[in-house]
């Protein structure tokens, strides 16, 4: 495994998209209403497309002959670099949409910053992705507001989802050596600088949703470094990677 910070950074972007895209795709055919089936599939499709770009570039940067598929289907848990938030299980529809909203709000801020990256290829991927994610955020925030400010039951479920997922928000803004190297090279922003804008946007949305942001800002960590993923990721990979692992000689 390469320790090139740019490779690590690209894996972080790609794995976030891959893991969340996979999670969203688990909803196929079982959403609360047909329009949501279509919207969820659309979002999963965008995220898988972004995965191909980020991991494809990661493979090129690494220069070890691994392409996006090799990275997606032949790494084990400890080599995944997604934040813990996106690997959390779908739960009910409210939990899925809360996870989506909390991620989208960071994702759009990150991609918007990356459009100014000194790396032209990263800037181009970010520009394309930001267009898609603008729509994801619009939709997830509308849904969080609609369900938060809906019935008593929908409000209760959305508050429970927020309480459950809030401890996974902080990790997106915690910098490490990889982030410092990206910042120094002008490739990516310091994660911490995105926090104020995020808090503003999330605060406004949660207020409109009549939901209460948890007071404790404790943050679980270990996803983007790969040091300690949750137990959930391994189960996801056993399903996602099964065919490639069971039939390593095959092409599909």
């Amino acid at each position, binding site marked *: 495994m390469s320790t090139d910070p740019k490779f690590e950074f690209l894996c972080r972007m790609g794995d976030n998209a891959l893991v969340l895209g996979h999670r969203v*795709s688990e909803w196929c*055919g079982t959403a609360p*209403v047909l329009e949501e089936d279509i919207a969820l599939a659309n979002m999963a499709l965008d995220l898988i497309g972004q995965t191909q770009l980020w991991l494809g570039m990661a493979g090129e940067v690494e220069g070890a002959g691994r392409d996006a*598929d090799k990275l997606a289907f032949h790494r084990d848990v400890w080599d995944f670099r997604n934040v813990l938030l996106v690997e959390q299980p779908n739960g009910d529809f409210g939990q899925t949409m809360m996870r989506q909203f909390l991620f989208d709000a960071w994702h759009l801020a990150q991609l918007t910053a990356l459009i100014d990256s000194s790396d032209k290829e990263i800037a181009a991927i970010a520009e394309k992705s930001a267009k898609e994610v603008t729509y994801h955020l619009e939709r997830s925030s509308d849904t969080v507001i609609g369900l938060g400010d809906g019935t008593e039951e*929908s409000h209760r479920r959305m508050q429970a989802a927020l309480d459950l997922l809030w401890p996974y928000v902080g990790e997106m803004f915690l910098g490490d050596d990889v982030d410092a190297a990206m910042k120094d090279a002008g490739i990516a922003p310091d994660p911490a600088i995105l926090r104020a804008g995020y808090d503003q946007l999330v605060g406004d949305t949660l207020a409109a949703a009549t939901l209460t942001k948890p007071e404790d800002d404790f943050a679980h960590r270990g996803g983007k470094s790969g040091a300690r993923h949750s137990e959930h990721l391994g189960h996801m990979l056993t399903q996602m990677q099964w*065919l490639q692992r069971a039939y390593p000689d*095959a092409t599909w």
Partner: protein
Amino acid sequence: MYAQMIKSTGKGIKSLDEMDPEERAFQERINAGGKIEPKDWMPDGYRKNLIRQIGQHAHSEIVGQLPEGNWITRAPTLERKAILLAKVQDEAGHGLYLYCAAETLGVTRDQMTRDLLSGKMKYSSIFNYPTLTWADMGAVGWLVDGAAIMNQVPLQRTSYGPYARAMVRICKEESFHQRQGFDIMMKMAKGTEAQRKMAQDALNRFWFPALMMFGPSDKDSVHSAQSMAWKIKMNTNDELRQKFVDETVPQAEYLGLTIPDETLKFNGETGHYDFAEPDWEEFFQVLKGNGPCNTERLAARNKAWDEGRWVREGLLAHAEKKRSRQMAAE
């Protein structure tokens, strides 16, 4: 074909002379190739038949997401995953257009959904078969979508305007689905020994169920004549089945796969392939609810609907609150 055994509500076919002036004008318009639009007069039987047929087609698209959704999370490459997601998304979209087309006949999507969930309305028998290996994603695209196209292409000329127009877009997308299915089959059939085995196994399991999609033989199909007079059915079941077999056999040969029918052979006199009938007893059992996956498919739809209730109610309540707030502000 996603509509099977649609019961005709007409009482046999009347001649033009037996019809009252309204019905005669309606039939003459159809005979001349004209379209019937939602606000036009139409016989009750025509309306009811179409609701059943379009509804069954819509439900098939919705239930049809499940056997393919079964493999989205196990798709072997990112590209295959994206293609399969796009395909299943198209199917949900087809369901949506078709429900809209049916709604122009005076039924609501909620009512049709309730009838699907209670088992009162049917969906195509084919979606009650399990998808067991990745090759099944190929076989479903190649055979199931291939069979559906046979029926849907002529339905672009059907007499009911909204249905015909929905079918134009659906057919474009279905032909992409069939091609992607064949592409998966090609990779599998030309792949490793294990992949070839999966491909042959998928063909073995899906061949006869695909033939059943066209419905029973013409001699046993009691409802066809009226539907054909109304041009809501454009070809007989046997015509379409024959066309499907004639087109599919050379494709199987190209793939190097064997169709599981020892009697299959080209008939030089007719210019068509002779082939064995599917097991119609199995077909009727599947329609009665005794297919391998009927229980799971209906349970999955019911679970999704029941567990989604709070979401639908929540969003409706919010829309209502928003409206009240806007009115108060004005």
